[in-house]
């Protein structure tokens, strides 16, 4: 498989389809910051409603779970040779230190193996230095699991994804 980096146009399309139309990702302000074949970088900004400890202002562990889950799913999509729907089978997260209040979160995820049925992925969450992680995760995803939004690796795929989304606009499948 060739290993091209995605163009800024591709990343913009991914942002539109993979974030804008995933209500929870959009609600907490997730953004695709970068993408390579099988790898994704996502961010989530610090916000008052994401706090887990009201005395210190530290972000809730669940926010990190959401960010890593979403970023893992995107890394898997980016590793697949052709578009497929995927579903998370399991996700293990180790929390290594509290997030620093007022700082946004980053996640870098890497889908390092794809088999016929399963994709394997790992990732880290951090502020600015990936070598100083807040949390690390490993997960597995089932391929061809159900109907989902195709990943927009081409303009045609993006148009197709938008069509599906428009048809299901009110959430009725």
């Amino acid at each position: 498989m060739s290993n091209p980096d995605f163009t800024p146009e591709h990343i913009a399309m991914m942002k539109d389809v993979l974030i804008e139309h995933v209500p929870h990702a959009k609600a907490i302000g997730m953004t695709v910051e970068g993408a390579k074949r099988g790898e994704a970088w996502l961010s989530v900004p610090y916000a008052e409603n994401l706090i887990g400890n009201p005395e210190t202002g530290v972000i809730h562990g669940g926010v990190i779970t959401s960010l890593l889950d979403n970023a893992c799913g995107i890394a898997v999509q980016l590793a697949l040779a052709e578009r497929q729907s995927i579903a998370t089978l399991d996700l293990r997260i180790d929390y290594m230190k509290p997030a620093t209040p007022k700082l946004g979160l980053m996640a870098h995820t890497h889908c390092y193996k794809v088999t016929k049925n399963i994709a394997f992925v790992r990732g880290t969450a951090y502020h600015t230095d990936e070598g100083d992680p807040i949390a690390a995760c490993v997960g597995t995803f089932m391929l061809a699991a159900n109907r989902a939004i195709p990943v927009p690796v081409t303009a045609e795929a993006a148009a197709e994804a938008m069509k599906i989304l428009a048809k299901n606009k009110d959430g009725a499948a």
Partner: protein
Amino acid sequence: MSEAKPPIDVNALMQAIPYARYLGITVDQRGNEITTVLHFSQHLIGNPVLPALHGGVIGAFLETTAIAQLAFEFAVGDASAAALPKPIGLTIDYLRSGRPMDTYGRAEITKQGRRVATVRAEAWQDDRSRPIAAAHGHFLLQAADDTPTS
């Protein structure tokens, strides 16, 4: 289980956590049992085509369910949201897709040590025998102020 000490108001404790409020998590406390409730809302959706709840939201709900159970069984009268147990590691198994409706959670403490507790949690929707996700995790108890989040 807790018999002797007066029960604490776990729901009030959870409502003090901004993120739990944001997700819409409440705690239903009956006798010596609690059930957490994740009230459905559009901003919890991860896949609008199915539609299905976001996997991260389900993970966060199970984590909160585990923490609520720990607070219910071990917290004392002056418990504050800041002193709740912190997650060290959490493994989530996704069993079924979470449909756009209310989700319920129960947790069981499988082992409590001096510094660390091991907890299992389960989430279901309209049929308790068909859970949508299960998790097990380790939590650092209040006093030990070593590592993890929250």
